Protein backbone atom coordinates (compact mmCIF):
# COMPACT_ATOMS: atom_id res chain seq x y z
CA UNK A 1 0.00 0.00 0.00
CA UNK A 2 2.80 2.44 0.88
CA UNK A 3 4.27 2.18 -2.63
CA UNK A 4 1.05 2.92 -4.43
CA UNK A 5 1.87 6.17 -6.21
CA UNK A 6 -1.62 7.06 -7.42
CA UNK A 7 -3.21 6.58 -3.99
CA UNK A 8 -0.47 8.62 -2.33
CA UNK A 9 -0.74 11.55 -4.72
CA UNK A 10 -4.55 11.60 -4.76
CA UNK A 11 -4.79 11.43 -0.98
CA UNK A 12 -2.15 14.15 -0.62
CA UNK A 13 -4.43 16.38 -2.70
CA UNK A 14 -7.61 15.23 -0.98
CA UNK A 15 -6.63 15.31 2.70
CA UNK A 16 -6.21 19.13 2.94
CA UNK A 17 -9.53 19.57 1.15
CA UNK A 18 -11.24 17.12 3.54
CA UNK A 19 -9.83 18.99 6.54
CA UNK A 20 -10.92 22.31 5.05
CA UNK A 21 -14.40 20.88 4.45
CA UNK A 22 -14.53 19.64 8.05
CA UNK A 23 -13.74 23.16 9.28
CA UNK A 24 -16.39 24.58 6.95
CA UNK A 25 -18.98 22.10 8.26
CA UNK A 26 -17.94 22.92 11.84
CA UNK A 27 -18.28 26.69 11.58
CA UNK A 28 -21.04 26.86 9.00
CA UNK A 29 -23.44 24.66 10.99
CA UNK A 30 -25.45 27.74 11.97
CA UNK A 31 -26.39 28.43 8.38
CA UNK A 32 -26.29 25.12 6.54
CA UNK A 33 -26.42 21.41 7.27
CA UNK A 34 -23.75 20.10 9.56
CA UNK A 35 -22.29 20.90 12.94
CA UNK A 36 -19.82 19.60 15.44
CA UNK A 37 -20.70 15.93 15.15
CA UNK A 38 -20.37 15.75 11.37
CA UNK A 39 -17.27 17.93 11.35
CA UNK A 40 -15.58 15.71 13.93
CA UNK A 41 -16.33 12.60 11.91
CA UNK A 42 -15.09 14.19 8.65
CA UNK A 43 -11.89 15.42 10.30
CA UNK A 44 -11.22 11.98 11.76
CA UNK A 45 -11.93 10.46 8.31
CA UNK A 46 -9.15 12.64 6.88
CA UNK A 47 -6.67 11.31 9.45
CA UNK A 48 -7.94 7.74 8.93
CA UNK A 49 -7.29 8.12 5.18
CA UNK A 50 -3.81 9.41 6.01
CA UNK A 51 -3.21 6.42 8.29
CA UNK A 52 -4.37 3.99 5.61
CA UNK A 53 -2.09 5.43 2.93
CA UNK A 54 1.00 6.49 4.88
CA UNK A 55 0.93 3.97 7.69
CA UNK A 56 -0.39 3.94 11.23
CA UNK A 57 2.93 4.98 12.82
CA UNK A 58 3.12 8.13 10.68
CA UNK A 59 -0.45 9.06 11.52
CA UNK A 60 0.19 8.47 15.22
CA UNK A 61 3.12 10.88 14.98
CA UNK A 62 0.81 13.51 13.48
CA UNK A 63 -1.94 12.99 16.07
CA UNK A 64 -0.59 11.08 19.09
CA UNK A 65 -3.16 8.80 20.80
CA UNK A 66 -2.15 10.24 24.18
CA UNK A 67 -3.22 13.68 22.93
CA UNK A 68 -6.49 12.20 21.63
CA UNK A 69 -7.28 10.73 25.04
CA UNK A 70 -6.84 14.17 26.61
CA UNK A 71 -8.83 15.90 23.84
CA UNK A 72 -11.76 13.48 24.14
CA UNK A 73 -12.08 14.18 27.86
CA UNK A 74 -11.48 17.91 27.40
CA UNK A 75 -14.26 18.12 24.78
CA UNK A 76 -16.87 16.59 27.09
CA UNK A 77 -15.59 18.47 30.13
CA UNK A 78 -15.64 21.86 28.43
CA UNK A 79 -19.13 21.19 27.05
CA UNK A 80 -20.36 20.57 30.58
CA UNK A 81 -18.26 23.58 31.60
CA UNK A 82 -20.31 25.89 29.36
CA UNK A 83 -23.31 24.87 31.47
CA UNK A 84 -21.47 25.60 34.70
CA UNK A 85 -20.42 29.02 33.38
CA UNK A 86 -24.02 29.85 32.50
CA UNK A 87 -25.09 28.86 36.04
CA UNK A 88 -22.39 31.11 37.49
CA UNK A 89 -23.55 33.98 35.31
CA UNK A 90 -27.04 33.68 36.75
CA UNK A 91 -28.88 31.50 34.24
CA UNK A 92 -30.01 27.89 34.09
CA UNK A 93 -27.66 25.04 33.18
CA UNK A 94 -26.72 25.32 29.46
CA UNK A 95 -28.79 28.51 29.09
CA UNK A 96 -26.57 30.50 26.75
CA UNK A 97 -28.58 33.74 26.85
CA UNK A 98 -26.64 34.95 29.90
CA UNK A 99 -23.21 34.39 28.30
CA UNK A 100 -23.32 37.82 26.71
CA UNK A 101 -25.05 41.11 27.42
CA UNK A 102 -27.28 40.57 24.38
CA UNK A 103 -29.27 37.29 24.75
CA UNK A 104 -29.19 36.54 21.00
CA UNK A 105 -25.43 37.06 20.85
CA UNK A 106 -25.09 34.89 23.96
CA UNK A 107 -27.09 32.09 22.34
CA UNK A 108 -24.94 32.38 19.22
CA UNK A 109 -21.74 32.22 21.26
CA UNK A 110 -23.01 29.30 23.32
CA UNK A 111 -24.02 27.27 20.27
CA UNK A 112 -20.65 27.97 18.62
CA UNK A 113 -18.73 26.89 21.74
CA UNK A 114 -20.85 23.79 22.29
CA UNK A 115 -20.56 22.70 18.64
CA UNK A 116 -16.80 23.16 18.84
CA UNK A 117 -16.58 20.92 21.91
CA UNK A 118 -18.82 18.31 20.29
CA UNK A 119 -16.49 18.40 17.28
CA UNK A 120 -13.37 17.98 19.40
CA UNK A 121 -14.86 15.11 21.42
CA UNK A 122 -16.26 13.24 18.40
CA UNK A 123 -13.05 13.70 16.39
CA UNK A 124 -10.84 12.37 19.16
CA UNK A 125 -13.09 9.45 20.10
CA UNK A 126 -13.56 8.29 16.48
CA UNK A 127 -9.86 8.51 15.76
CA UNK A 128 -8.98 6.87 19.06
CA UNK A 129 -11.30 3.93 18.30
CA UNK A 130 -9.74 3.58 14.83
CA UNK A 131 -6.17 3.73 16.20
CA UNK A 132 -7.05 1.15 18.85
CA UNK A 133 -8.57 -1.25 16.32
CA UNK A 134 -5.84 -0.74 13.72
CA UNK A 135 -3.09 -0.87 16.35
CA UNK A 136 -4.08 -4.37 17.35
CA UNK A 137 -3.41 -5.62 13.81
CA UNK A 138 0.25 -4.70 14.24
CA UNK A 139 2.56 -7.69 14.64
Amino acid at each position, binding site marked *: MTHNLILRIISKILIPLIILFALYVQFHG*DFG*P*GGGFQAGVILSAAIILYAMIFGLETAERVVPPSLLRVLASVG*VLLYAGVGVVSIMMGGNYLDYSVLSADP*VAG*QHLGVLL*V*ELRVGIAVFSVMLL*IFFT*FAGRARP
Partner: protein
Amino acid sequence: MIDVIINVTLLAFLAVTAVAIARMRDLFAITMLFGMFSFLSAGLFIVMDAVDVAFTEAAVGAGVSTTLMLATLALTKDHDEKTPVVHRPWYPLVIVILTGSALVYGTWDIPAFGSGAAPAHTHVAPEYLSRSIPDTGIQNVVTSVLASYRGFDTLGEVTVVFTAGIAVLILIGGRRRSGRQNPEEGESHDA
Protein backbone atom coordinates in the same frame (compact mmCIF):
# COMPACT_ATOMS: atom_id res chain seq x y z
CA MET B 1 -43.23 12.62 -9.66
CA ILE B 2 -39.44 12.66 -9.83
CA ASP B 3 -39.39 12.19 -6.04
CA VAL B 4 -41.44 9.01 -6.38
CA ILE B 5 -39.10 7.59 -9.01
CA ILE B 6 -36.02 8.38 -6.90
CA ASN B 7 -37.65 6.95 -3.78
CA VAL B 8 -38.69 3.74 -5.50
CA THR B 9 -35.25 3.32 -7.08
CA LEU B 10 -33.41 3.92 -3.79
CA LEU B 11 -35.74 1.62 -1.86
CA ALA B 12 -35.35 -1.09 -4.51
CA PHE B 13 -31.57 -0.80 -4.26
CA LEU B 14 -31.85 -0.92 -0.45
CA ALA B 15 -33.88 -4.12 -0.66
CA VAL B 16 -31.45 -5.69 -3.16
CA THR B 17 -28.49 -4.76 -0.92
CA ALA B 18 -30.22 -6.17 2.17
CA VAL B 19 -31.02 -9.47 0.44
CA ALA B 20 -27.46 -9.66 -0.91
CA ILE B 21 -26.05 -9.07 2.60
CA ALA B 22 -28.28 -11.82 3.99
CA ARG B 23 -27.26 -14.32 1.29
CA MET B 24 -23.52 -13.61 1.09
CA ARG B 25 -20.90 -15.45 3.11
CA ASP B 26 -17.82 -13.35 2.28
CA LEU B 27 -17.45 -10.89 5.17
CA PHE B 28 -15.34 -8.43 3.16
CA ALA B 29 -18.03 -8.10 0.50
CA ILE B 30 -20.70 -7.81 3.21
CA THR B 31 -18.79 -4.92 4.81
CA MET B 32 -18.67 -3.13 1.47
CA LEU B 33 -22.40 -3.70 1.00
CA PHE B 34 -23.05 -2.25 4.47
CA GLY B 35 -21.32 0.92 3.27
CA MET B 36 -23.54 0.95 0.18
CA PHE B 37 -26.60 0.44 2.37
CA SER B 38 -25.64 3.48 4.43
CA PHE B 39 -25.09 5.59 1.32
CA LEU B 40 -28.48 4.58 -0.08
CA SER B 41 -30.11 5.47 3.26
CA ALA B 42 -28.33 8.83 3.12
CA GLY B 43 -29.78 9.35 -0.34
CA LEU B 44 -33.26 8.60 0.98
CA PHE B 45 -32.77 11.08 3.83
CA ILE B 46 -31.79 13.76 1.30
CA VAL B 47 -34.96 13.12 -0.71
CA MET B 48 -36.88 13.58 2.57
CA ASP B 49 -35.05 16.94 3.10
CA ALA B 50 -33.32 15.65 6.23
CA VAL B 51 -29.88 16.83 5.10
CA ASP B 52 -28.32 16.87 8.57
CA VAL B 53 -29.29 13.25 9.16
CA ALA B 54 -28.11 12.30 5.65
CA PHE B 55 -24.80 14.00 6.36
CA THR B 56 -24.30 12.02 9.55
CA GLU B 57 -25.38 8.75 7.93
CA ALA B 58 -22.94 9.21 5.03
CA ALA B 59 -20.04 10.21 7.28
CA VAL B 60 -20.57 7.72 10.12
CA GLY B 61 -22.46 4.86 8.49
CA ALA B 62 -20.68 4.70 5.16
CA GLY B 63 -17.33 6.15 6.20
CA VAL B 64 -16.15 5.48 9.71
CA SER B 65 -18.10 2.33 10.57
CA THR B 66 -17.07 0.66 7.28
CA THR B 67 -13.45 1.43 8.16
CA LEU B 68 -13.92 0.06 11.68
CA MET B 69 -15.51 -3.13 10.33
CA LEU B 70 -12.62 -3.53 7.89
CA ALA B 71 -10.17 -3.02 10.77
CA THR B 72 -12.03 -5.71 12.72
CA LEU B 73 -11.87 -8.02 9.70
CA ALA B 74 -8.13 -7.50 9.54
CA LEU B 75 -7.92 -8.74 13.13
CA THR B 76 -9.92 -11.90 12.53
CA LYS B 77 -8.58 -14.85 10.62
CA ASP B 78 -11.68 -16.41 9.18
CA HIS B 79 -13.08 -14.10 6.51
CA ASP B 80 -16.03 -16.32 5.69
CA GLU B 81 -19.15 -16.53 7.75
CA LYS B 82 -19.83 -20.10 8.87
CA THR B 83 -22.46 -21.76 6.72
CA PRO B 84 -25.48 -22.11 8.99
CA VAL B 85 -27.20 -25.43 9.59
CA VAL B 86 -30.04 -25.64 7.08
CA HIS B 87 -33.45 -25.46 8.74
CA ARG B 88 -36.83 -25.90 7.19
CA PRO B 89 -37.71 -22.38 5.96
CA TRP B 90 -41.47 -22.51 6.67
CA TYR B 91 -41.43 -21.59 10.35
CA PRO B 92 -39.25 -18.44 9.96
CA LEU B 93 -41.11 -17.54 6.76
CA VAL B 94 -44.48 -17.54 8.58
CA ILE B 95 -43.02 -15.35 11.37
CA VAL B 96 -41.54 -12.91 8.85
CA ILE B 97 -44.81 -12.66 6.89
CA LEU B 98 -46.82 -12.12 10.10
CA THR B 99 -44.43 -9.46 11.42
CA GLY B 100 -44.29 -7.78 8.01
CA SER B 101 -48.06 -7.61 7.68
CA ALA B 102 -48.36 -6.25 11.23
CA LEU B 103 -45.86 -3.50 10.32
CA VAL B 104 -47.66 -2.70 7.05
CA TYR B 105 -50.94 -2.59 8.99
CA GLY B 106 -49.26 -0.15 11.38
CA THR B 107 -48.30 2.20 8.53
CA TRP B 108 -51.99 2.78 7.75
CA ASP B 109 -52.25 4.97 10.84
CA ILE B 110 -49.12 6.96 10.05
CA PRO B 111 -49.95 10.44 8.72
CA ALA B 112 -48.98 11.18 5.11
CA PHE B 113 -45.36 12.24 4.53
CA GLY B 114 -44.96 15.97 5.11
CA SER B 115 -48.52 16.32 6.42
CA GLY B 116 -48.89 19.43 8.55
CA ALA B 117 -51.37 17.65 10.81
CA ALA B 118 -48.84 15.00 11.84
CA PRO B 119 -48.28 14.92 15.64
CA ALA B 120 -44.60 15.73 15.14
CA HIS B 121 -45.52 19.03 13.48
CA THR B 122 -48.19 20.12 15.95
CA HIS B 123 -46.33 19.75 19.26
CA VAL B 124 -43.14 21.78 19.81
CA ALA B 125 -41.90 21.97 16.21
CA PRO B 126 -43.86 25.14 15.25
CA GLU B 127 -42.55 26.87 18.36
CA TYR B 128 -38.94 25.99 17.52
CA LEU B 129 -39.44 27.12 13.91
CA SER B 130 -40.92 30.46 14.89
CA ARG B 131 -38.60 31.15 17.84
CA SER B 132 -35.23 30.01 16.49
CA ILE B 133 -34.25 33.22 14.68
CA PRO B 134 -35.57 35.72 17.29
CA ASP B 135 -34.09 33.65 20.16
CA THR B 136 -30.75 32.61 18.74
CA GLY B 137 -30.28 34.23 15.33
CA ILE B 138 -29.44 30.81 13.89
CA GLN B 139 -30.95 30.04 10.48
CA ASN B 140 -30.47 26.27 10.64
CA VAL B 141 -33.14 25.23 13.14
CA VAL B 142 -31.59 21.75 13.44
CA THR B 143 -28.48 23.35 14.93
CA SER B 144 -30.37 25.60 17.34
CA VAL B 145 -32.57 22.72 18.55
CA LEU B 146 -29.58 20.39 18.89
CA ALA B 147 -27.19 22.77 20.60
CA SER B 148 -29.44 25.20 22.45
CA TYR B 149 -33.03 24.07 23.06
CA ARG B 150 -31.93 20.49 23.64
CA GLY B 151 -28.34 21.18 24.67
CA PHE B 152 -28.67 18.84 27.62
CA ASP B 153 -29.65 15.95 25.30
CA THR B 154 -26.63 16.67 23.13
CA LEU B 155 -24.40 16.68 26.21
CA GLY B 156 -25.75 13.19 26.91
CA GLU B 157 -25.03 12.11 23.33
CA VAL B 158 -21.45 13.37 23.49
CA THR B 159 -21.05 11.51 26.78
CA VAL B 160 -22.31 8.34 25.05
CA VAL B 161 -19.69 8.77 22.30
CA PHE B 162 -17.04 9.39 24.96
CA THR B 163 -18.13 6.30 26.90
CA ALA B 164 -17.93 4.21 23.71
CA GLY B 165 -14.34 5.38 23.23
CA ILE B 166 -13.46 4.51 26.83
CA ALA B 167 -15.11 1.09 26.48
CA VAL B 168 -13.05 0.32 23.35
CA LEU B 169 -9.88 1.46 25.12
CA ILE B 170 -10.64 -0.72 28.16
CA LEU B 171 -11.56 -3.77 26.09
CA ILE B 172 -8.78 -3.84 23.50
CA GLY B 173 -6.64 -0.76 24.14
CA GLY B 174 -4.05 -2.18 26.50
CA ARG B 175 -3.32 -5.60 25.05
CA ARG B 176 -0.52 -4.58 22.70
CA ARG B 177 1.80 -3.55 25.50
CA SER B 178 1.26 -6.74 27.51
CA GLY B 179 1.75 -8.80 24.33
CA ARG B 180 5.12 -7.15 23.79
CA GLN B 181 6.21 -7.91 27.33
CA ASN B 182 5.27 -11.61 27.17
CA PRO B 183 5.87 -12.79 23.61
CA GLU B 184 5.34 -16.46 24.56
CA GLU B 185 1.87 -15.70 25.81
CA GLY B 186 1.01 -13.87 22.61
CA GLU B 187 2.12 -16.85 20.52
CA SER B 188 0.06 -19.29 22.52
CA HIS B 189 -2.96 -17.03 21.92
CA ASP B 190 -2.42 -17.20 18.18
CA ALA B 191 -2.09 -20.98 18.13
